[in-house]
């Protein structure tokens, strides 16, 4: 049985199911209990699991991140709620120097099974400190897994997998998608890490897109179909580990690729995926691989400016048409 639920509800269900299944799962963060977070994603959990397991913390991001690391090393499975992805900078030491490296530095003796749930996504008119998409920052660090759900279905399945994983996992939810609905099975399911989803099959160009950019890519593919261009849309679902094989197979077939992600373009997720395509499928390519990330500027407040900074369907479609015509987009 499948019903349509919001991404927010999907996250809530994933956590509730895992907390019922495993008593060592706890939830930790600012206003996670009675308030259920500012986005109301966690509403109702404290009523079922109590304040012993759904723990409101002071506004001390490095502090509760560090506490989660120690708790994870000693028998709990903390799910940390970081209210905005922009606050990742505050927890970098605990996440990247401690959580990510503990298993390695201890020669495999200590494990850190924790999940850091946070968000990403601009165009909410929230300006530069509440709009960033910082997945590249953590994907760069060995020892962290990074998931980027593109719908309620993925949000639920990936989060359940994350909670059962014995490693630190960072999940980015697009805060603009919390109210978006998608079909989600009633019965239990998991979405495995490192398995991309081919959202739409095509022959002429591969659009690799993460999180909300999957919708953008699908919209572009629809427009391209009207022009007789057949686009394949691939959602990697996790960027660490990355399902390189599915992406490379697609590019070998289409011979063209555009990579779309909402993080800043330079040194970003798009750059990494494009480079791997370039290294591993070079002789199959008929056009340069195109990166489409967020503009390399802090996210501006004014709607007139902010909308310019994020990739959109028209831009993706236009780039696809041009590479399919053999035009060089970034001529030297």
């Amino acid at each position: 049985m499948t019903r349509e639920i919001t991404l927010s509800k999907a996250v809530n269900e994933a956590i509730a199911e895992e907390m019922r299944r495993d008593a060592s799962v706890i939830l930790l963060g600012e206003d996670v209990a009675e308030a259920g977070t500012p986005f109301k994603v966690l509403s109702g959990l404290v009523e079922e699991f109590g304040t012993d397991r759904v723990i409101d913390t002071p506004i001390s991001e490095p502090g509760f991140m560090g506490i989660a690391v120690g708790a994870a090393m000693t028998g709990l499975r903390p799910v940390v709620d970081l209210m905005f992805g922009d606050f990742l900078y505050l927890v970098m030491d605990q996440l990247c120097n401690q959580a990510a490296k503990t298993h390695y530095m201890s020669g495999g003796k200590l494990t850190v099974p924790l999940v850091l749930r946070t968000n990403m996504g601009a165009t909410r008119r929230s300006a530069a400190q509440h709009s960033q998409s910082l997945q590249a920052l953590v994907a760069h660090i060995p020892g962290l897994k990074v998931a980027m759900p593109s719908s309620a279905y993925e949000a639920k399945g990936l989060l359940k997998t994350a909670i059962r994983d014995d490693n630190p996992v960072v999940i980015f939810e697009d805060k603009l998608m919390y109210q978006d609905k998608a079909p989600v099975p009633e019965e239990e399911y998991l979405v495995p890490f490192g398995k991309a989803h081919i959202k739409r099959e095509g022959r002429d160009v591969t659009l690799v897109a993460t999180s909300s950019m999957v919708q953008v890519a699908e919209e572009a593919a629809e427009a391209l179909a009207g022009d007789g261009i057949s686009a394949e849309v691939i959602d990697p679902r996790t960027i660490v580990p990355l399902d390189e094989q599915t992406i490379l197979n697609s590019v070998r077939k289409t011979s063209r690729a555009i990579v779309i992600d909402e993080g800043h373009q330079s040194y970003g997720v798009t750059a990494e995926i494009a480079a791997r395509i370039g290294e591993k499928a070079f002789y199959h390519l008929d056009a340069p691989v195109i990166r489409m990330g967020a503009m390399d500027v802090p996210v501006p407040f004014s709607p007139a400016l902010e909308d310019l900074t994020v990739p959109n369907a028209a831009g993706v479609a236009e780039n696809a048409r041009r590479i399919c015509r053999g035009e060089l987009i970034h001529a030297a």
Partner: protein
Amino acid sequence: MSAAKNRHNTEDYLQMYRQMVRIRAFEDNANQLYLSARMPGLTHMYSGQEAVAVGICEALTDEDRITSTHRGHGHCVAKGADLKTMFCELLGKAEGYCRGKGGSMHIADQSHGNLGANAIVGGSMGIATGAALSAKRLGREFVTVCFFGDGATAQGLWYEVMNMAALWRLPVIYACENNGYSEYTRTEEIAAGSLIARAQAFGVEAFQVDGQDVLAVNELTQQLVGRCRKGEGPFFIELDTYRYHGHHVGDINRDYYRSRDEEAEWKKLRDPITNFGKWLIDQKIMSADELVAIDEEISADAQAAVQYALDAPYPDVNEVDMHVFSGVDHALEYTGGAHR
């Protein structure tokens, strides 16, 4: 030094003496390894501070946890680690506690509850507090001791986690080893007001103790551990102590920040091992000859451990991308990363 409680404690006293001597012997050998260029990297000597690690850890069980620091060999030995495996780690050998991946500043010994040294000053304060949260949530009895230096009290993390520990009544003891210096700077220059007052401001009961007096440290810790187990934590202890060597083994010319007279005075008057040894003799618990025999036996053990580690093999190059992720044999195959 306080009077002997009763003769039943003889075993405990001897254990404390032996553990302090083991730490000193370990460090003397580590220093020699560095000076003779047989050890990769630098290391921070614990010599002089032995009564802190031993006084505290002898009040703990293997179930109890500690977190340690860059100056962590003493904590590791005191919590029960084996010298051979420790030297192997210092030399980057496969039989080391962390298969040579951690080295001096990251030794962790899970089997005795040592959650690891940490090369980020103050970096383990959250981890220790989190371990205490586990104890409370899982209904387990273990207590966690968080070791850190006077310099680490300047990190904001401590105040964040101590606030939560106090709010949630967590079984954690913050143990600040005040050795008078952080690197090349005197504590007075970096710490305003009093350290114990800072803990008290959070409603955390705070104590100051002579960190050169192993019995005083042990007695206080036993009380606090017992109270932690009854749900009365957290606590803070400031232990006055002194490091004999430079900040690290390479810090040899240090007259510009610390006088030789000051060093000589601590060594002469306040050495934790000498003073405890004298007390054992005064109390007629041990004879001078017996103590010398112990010292010699431990010294021989330590040297044998060094030799063992020098002869031990390095990890196979195949291990370089192992242990990045739990449940994944080789990380590069898994992430498609690079260059294999």
